[in-house]
């Protein structure tokens, strides 16, 4: 029961309160770039969850069993980004060779994920927050779900926005950001929900 409660708390926190896109500003590029169509937005979201889980499963043991005992914690940034970049390439090759159907649906998102700051951010945050392996995986899942949720909601908003006609200077990116502001405002309302549900 305790474990379940903890899991729920971590997931609720990272999906609703500390949403990576809307309140921590990580992964803004794909959030703005790939959110025009609902199917693309959800595909990107699923790909991000997949890579986040995989990246955490690899980087957490590296940090805990390889870098920390040898006093090489300062190499974190270099090692993590290289691991993520290699991992994404590897996943792409494996998918292409063995599961072509999955590759054709997820493959187009993989190049966008290497430089996605949300993936690097979640692996580093898991270490700084002092999570153990299980908690890290849950937190990555939560962050990925939060990303997916934000993408899907925002895709809906943007499909409506395409039909509107903003002032000339606002066309394109500025009005998209203004819409993102309103979506983010909605998530801002979740502020105290976790502490009131689970206590401190």
């Amino acid at each position, binding site marked *: 029961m305790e474990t379940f409660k903890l899991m729920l708390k971590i997931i609720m926190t990272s999906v609703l309160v500390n949403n990576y896109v809307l309140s921590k500003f990580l992964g803004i590029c794909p959030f*703005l770039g790939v959110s025009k169509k609902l199917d*693309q937005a959800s595909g990107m979201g699923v790909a991000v969850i997949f890579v986040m889980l995989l990246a955490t499963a690899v980087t957490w043991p590296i940090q805990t069993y390889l870098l920390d005992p040898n006093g090489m914690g300062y190499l974190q940034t270099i090692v993590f980004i290289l691991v993520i970049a290699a991992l994404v390439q590897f996943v792409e090759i494996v998918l292409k060779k063995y599961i072509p159907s999955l590759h054709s649906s997820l493959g187009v998102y993989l*190049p966008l994920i290497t430089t*996605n700051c949300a993936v*690097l951010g979640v692996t*580093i945050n898991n270490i700084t927050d002092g999570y153990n392996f299980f908690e890290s995986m849950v937190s990555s899942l939560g962050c990925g779900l939060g990303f997916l949720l934000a993408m899907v909601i925002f895709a809906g908003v943007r499909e409506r926005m395409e039909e509107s006609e903003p002032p000339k200077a606002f066309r394109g990116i500025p009005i998209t950001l*203004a819409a993102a*502001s309103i979506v983010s405002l909605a998530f801002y309302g979740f502020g105290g929900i976790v502490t009131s549900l689970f206590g401190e």
Partner: protein
Amino acid sequence: MKKLKILLNGLLKENPVLVLVLGTCPTLAMSVSVINAVAMGLAATAVLTCSNMVISLLRKVIPDTVRIPCYIVVIAGFVTLVQMLMEAYLPELYEMLGVYLALIVVNCIILGRAEMFANKHNVLESALDGLGMGAGFTLALIAMATIREVLGNASFAGMKIGFLEPYKISFLTAPPGGFLVFGCLIALVAHITRGKAPQRKSFDCEGCPSASFCRKDCASCETAEKVEA
């Protein structure tokens, strides 16, 4: 003359943040207060200038096929350097910047300049380009932070502005305010330059942060093509 042009290019005409709309994550996250903005801007400028120089020096040595991993290693090296220096000498700022300091590695501006500029130009030009782009990034950050801090928190770089205290709009320092101020600033720049600057209409391949990883077949490219068609 040409060198001066390279230096000034990043400040206004091709301002990485307000015109090319790159590096959005740190811009939004670090513009809550002016001090944060200056620290982030300087850290990124230092990394950008150094990595531009090293990549330009190595541009004939690095094989084309593995250039991106090489760039990432160089950039990550300098980021680690900045992290260690900051932790030692400016621990308070290090705490404030937090994870965003490490995330300079994946800042699209830095990888983008390596790919678009440093691997085609000599060392001096690359260094100037790095300085100019870094300064443009810093200025845009400071502009945004000034708006958000003065109107949202009634202070400037930590100093209280008394007469604004009753009128502060605390919404602006919250995450939604960041998106809104950023959108309005880009619109303002688009309005003032009105076609003179190479305005980025959509998130197409040219300015795409992932352009270097992508073989023109990613989801972002597809969207861009559909918009053009």
